[in-house]
Every structure is written in C-alpha cells, then in structure tokens.
C-alpha cells in the first residue's frame, strides 16, 4: 500500500500537470489571410522548413481535387458513400508529412485524402467506399492501418503497434487520427492511458471539425478543450489552428520527433471545420446554417498557405498553376479508372476469414459455386 508520505505533494502534482497543458489559445503561425502573426508558434514551435511547406501545398491542392472528384463520383453512383474532408486539408496532409514512410498511420473513414497524400493509389484508397473490399491497400506495405469506422477503436491499436516497435528496437512512430466525437468513446481514453503508461511513441491527432454528424461540440464535451483530455492520463497535449498548415506541421513535427526520441505519446487537437455534409447521405441543413459554413470557408487552409508561400516567394504563380494542372490530370485519371464497376469475385467471400479456411467454409464455398453453376 502507498502511504500518504510517498504521494507527491499537491504543488508538485500541480506543476507536473501544468507542463502537460495545451496553450490557452490554439498555436498559430498564419492569420486567415496567410500573413505571419506576431506571436507565431507562441514562441514554442519552430517554423517548418520551406520545402516541407511547398510540398504540403502541392499535396493539399492534389488532396482537395481528389476529394472533389470523389464527391462527384459518389453523385454519379460510382462510390457507395463518401465522407469528404474538404476544409481539413491542413490536418490531412500535415498528418502525413509529419511522418516518415516507415512510420505508421491509423486513419478513419474521413482520411481518404490522407491516404492518397501518403502515395496510396487512389483506386486502392477508395476500394472501401466504392463498396468493393473493406480495405484496398496492403497495410504492411503502406504502413497504414485499414480505415477505421467504429469510432476511437483504433487508438489502442496505434498505442500497441508503437509500443511493439519500441520493444523491437525500431524508431517507428504511429500517428492516429480521430474526430471530436470519437474523443467521447471509451477506447479513446483507454488508448491514451495505455500509450502513456507504456510510453508508446504515438501521436493522437484529433481533428475537431466541430460536428459528429449532427451533434455539435457543445453537446459532446464540457472540457475546456479536447486537448485537455490528455493531461488526466499524463499525455502532454497541444491545441492548434487546424486550418493553418504551418502551425499544424510545426506542432505535429515536434510531437513526432518527441515520440521518436523516446518521450512517449502526445495529443494534438486541431481546430478545423467539415465544409461538406458528414457524407453524401447527410443533410447538413438540418443542424447548421449556411452562414457558419461560409465563415469557415473564409479560413480556407489551401488559400491561406498559398498566399503565404506566394508572399514569401517560396512559390511562384507558375508553381501554383503546375500544382493545379497536376491535380486535374490526377483527378481525370481517377475518374476514368472508376468508370467501370469493380470486378466481382465470389470466392473472396470465403477467403481470409482464417489463414486456412475451415471445412465449413470450404463446404459453403462449394454450395455457392454449385448454385452459381446452376444459374448459368
């Protein structure tokens, strides 16, 4: 049993907690028009390298065009469903660029843009949402877990994978995406606690896009910020302007670096906004006004970064044109590749339930084959 003499004094607990606390206001480098703010990075975070920012810009242009194409394809019935991440480009691309190729990413259904930004073939990235197989890419080859739909349930996985990497002597970091709504699930809390107790090199990126389908943040939590949820578990946390790519990258790169150097998990809350409805099937007019959406559109992350990089001379008008052209070509290729229906292979039903199908599965597979032969 612990005696009271062994417990740290209240002041010590207080100051330890203070070190874990996020900044009072979100970390920011750029204002809404893309101009550097006076207290950039709150003096706590370094400006990312210019090449990282120009690369982020290119991938954001591509990501946005991909996302618009996916939305259009859904309207044409080419995808079963599509949860757009328009407006969240800084987080989608920031999460990818903060990682090395060998680091692991744990995405949700919202992260199709991050998948393609990671270099995953767009048709493979959309396999799930096309109604084809559940996951279209190879998680081991891409160091990217299957997109997770049951909210928050992948967070303990990220902690476990990151911990395993440390046990194996690898310097791999895991970055897991989760939404504002997802932070209410039990697994979010268990994931943070496990990560902290086992000092797992994992970064939790909460994209606070203000809504969980129709439920606004005020109904989701009474916490001062979602970043504050880290401190109860001993996980240092930060909040960042999620539409400021410079800030997102600055904070995420620091968090990843920290984790890689053995200092354990980190939680980042990125304040952003979901411009489109939850998915194509959602009617957002039932729960939010157009004025609110318009206000957030004026904080557009792509335009903001573009203005900044043009002003600093890191990008030229030609670079901007080239990025857009490339994105156009990418989108039109994607459109062509998704024009036809995916191939139907009924044998897949019985494969991969286990490493080796059970006798029952072999039998059921034969029944289906017989049935299909009878039909033809």
């Amino acid at each position, binding site marked *: 049993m612990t005696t009271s003499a062994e417990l740290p004094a209240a002041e010590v607990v207080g100051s330890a907690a203070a070190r874990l606390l996020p900044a009072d206001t979100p970390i920011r480098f750029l204002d809404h028009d893309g101009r550097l703010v006076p207290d950039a990075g709150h003096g706590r975070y370094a400006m990312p390298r210019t090449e990282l920012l120009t690369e982020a810009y290119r991938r954001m242009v591509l990501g946005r065009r991909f996302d618009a194409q996916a939305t259009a394809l859904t309207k044409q019935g080419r995808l*079963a*469903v599509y949860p757009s991440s328009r407006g969240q480009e800084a987080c989608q691309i920031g999460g990818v660029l903060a990682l090395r190729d060998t680091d692991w990413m744990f995405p949700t*259904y919202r992260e199709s843009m991050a998948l393609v930004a990671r270099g995953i073939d767009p048709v493979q990235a959309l396999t*799930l*949402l096309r*109604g*084809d*197989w*559940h996951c279209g890419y190879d998680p081991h080859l891409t160091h990217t877990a299957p997109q997770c*739909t*049951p*909210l928050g*349930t992948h967070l303990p996985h990220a902690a476990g994978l990151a911990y395993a990497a440390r046990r194996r002597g690898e310097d791999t970091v895991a970055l897991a995406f989760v939404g504002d*709504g*997802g932070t*209410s*699930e*039990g*697994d979010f809390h268990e994931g943070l606690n496990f990560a902290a107790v086992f000092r797992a090199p994992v970064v939790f990126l909460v994209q606070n896009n203000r809504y*969980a*389908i*129709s*439920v606004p943040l005020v*109904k*989701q*939590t009474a916490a001062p910020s979602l970043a504050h949820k880290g401190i109860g578990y001993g996980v240092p946390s930060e909040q960042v302007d999620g539409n400021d790519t410079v800030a997102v990258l600055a904070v995420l790169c620091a968090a990843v670096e920290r984790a890689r150097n053995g200092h354990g998990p980190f939680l980042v809350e990125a304040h952003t906004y979901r411009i489109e409805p939850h998915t194509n*099937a959602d009617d957002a007019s*039932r*729960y939010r006004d157009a004025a609110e959406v318009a206000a957030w559109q004026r904080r557009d992350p792509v335009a903001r970064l573009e203005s900044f990089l043009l002003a600093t001379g890191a990008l030229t008008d030609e670079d901007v044109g080239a990025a857009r052209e490339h994105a156009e070509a990418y989108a039109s290729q994607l459109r062509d590749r998704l024009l036809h*229906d*995916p191939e*139907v292979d*009924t044998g*897949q*039903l*019985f494969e991969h*339930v286990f490493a080796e199908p*059970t*006798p*029952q*599965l*072999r*039998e*059921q*597979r*034969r*029944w*289906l084959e017989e*049935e299909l032969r009878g039909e033809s």
Partner: protein
Amino acid sequence: MAITMAQALNTALRDAMADDESVVVFGEDVGPLGGVFRVTDGIARDLGDDRCFDTPLAESGIVGFALGMAMNGFRPVVEIQFDAFAYPAWEQLVSHVSRMRNRSRGAVGVPLVVRIPYGGGIGGVEHHSDSSEAYYVHTPGLKVVIPATVPDAYSLLREAIADPDPVIVMEPKKLYWSKADVALPVRTAGFGNAEVRRPGDDVTVLAYGAAVPVALEAAEVASDRGRELEVLDVRTLVPFDDQTVAESVGKTGRCVVVHEAAGFAGVGAEMVARVQERCFHSLHAPVLRVTGFDIPYPPPILERFHLPNADRVLAAIDRLQWDDQPDPRWLTEVPA
C-alpha cells in the same frame, strides 16, 4: 394512408411519450437530425429537447446512463446508430442491463429499450450491416423482438416500452421504407406470439425481420409449383413461441428456417433444436437452415451472394426428402 416502418416507429415513440411522462429518447443524432434513419424525426422539436436528446458519442455511456435512469423512475428508449456500433455497449448490456433484476432478487427492474437498426441489403460499407441478434438472445434477461411489418413495428415498440424488463428492438434496415396501409395506433399480437403470414400444409418456414418477405416470395413460387408453404413470422425471439411453431410443424412435417445472420450457432440453430425436440415424430425430413455464410458481413458488391433469397429457400424446400431419399448434400465429402 400508406406509412413506412420508420414512420410507424416514430409514431410509436411519440404516442408512448405522450402517454407516459417518464419515457425519454436519447442517443446519437436523434435530436435535431431525427436519427440517421429519421425514426425520431421531429420528436425533439414537438415534445421538447428534454424528452428526446443527443448524447455524447459513446454507446457504453448511452446504455449505462439509460440503466441509471431506469433505476430511478424513467423509461429510456435509446437508439444505437447501427448494429455494429452496439458493441462498445456490450459490457453494459451483458453484465448489467440483463442481470439487474436477477442480481437484486427482483428489487430493481430496468424498463429500458435499446433500438438497433440491423441487417444488410442496403449497400452499407463494413460495420453497417451486421445481424447481431444471436448475441442478445444468448444473454438471459434480455427480451429481443424484431418487427417485419409496419403494424408490428408500431405495436412491438409500444409493448417494448411498456415492458418491465429490458427489450432489444432490432429494426431491419432494409424494411424501414417498406409501406403498409395502417391506421395508428394499432395493436398486434403480444410478445411470445409468432404469426402465420401465409398458411400452408406442406412446409413450415420460420423467419423474422427481412427474411420474412424472402420467405413469402419463396412461398408464392412454391405454390405455383404445387407446394404450400406456411410462413411463420417469429416476431419475438425472446420470448419464443414454441407452441405456434410446434403446431405448424406438427401439421406440415417439414421445416426450413431462414435468417440473414451466419448459420453457425445462430438463432436458426436454436429454432431447429426446439423443433426437433418437440416435433421429432411428425418430421419427414431434417429441419434445414437457409442463412448467411459463416463470414464477416461482406462488402456491398458481394452482399447479394451472402444474403438468403427466395431461390435458396426453394432449393432447401426441394431437399426435404420428398422421395424419402437422404439429402445428397450431406453425402458429399467436404472439399479439400
């Protein structure tokens, strides 16, 4: 006027709330949005947002909170957004909701309802099409009901809300937009009663939820081919109506069970066991099952191969030893 199953459920909630102040509705997106299937459409607006409200996104919290409210005078009706998202609430359902009455020697009942849209056939991506009824029926202390018709949707939900025990109402997503001419309020047979949806003398077909229309379609075709199927809509899995089932099989001597969920250790297995226990001497053939395969629910492009359809029911009917020959299926070796 023709109304949909979703509308009948909506009216059942409104009527129950009007009759009893203690009935409250909550869950994810059930407030201003009206639920992703619009079952709670307009209820928060019309009856007040203290009677129908959104909660934080946490199913374990939703069900546990409902239990607490039920212990203290309320009758919560909670919505789980989709079948597979009930799993975070598993601990609450199995260790608490189902056992509170038993643990407290009857002192604490928990009159709460968990509504779960379930099943496939709607082109849903993974985790949106599970048939999870077997998990609940295997948990003593939970009643489990599944409407297949619009009037039953209304009546079973009303009865569930009035019930002194916890009831899982599984709503077949595929039938949410099915329509019927029905004047509400309507009361159909109570819990523990199966309904004969189509009489017949040759084979009893047991079905529930979205499998009922499949069985009826098969019965239509079978009748053209000279065999009359008696289609029983089981309606309430717990409590189960042994009597109506046994009477029907006693008459027909043959039985096929149809459901969407995987066959292995599914509800069909229980029904088959009960039929053979009670009707062994009336049976002319083994009782067969037409079910989903023993696989995780497949993606949309493959679901039509997984779901039971009328052809599969008819194929099973054909295998009921009409010529006293053993079923060839069980004589064939399992492929390597």
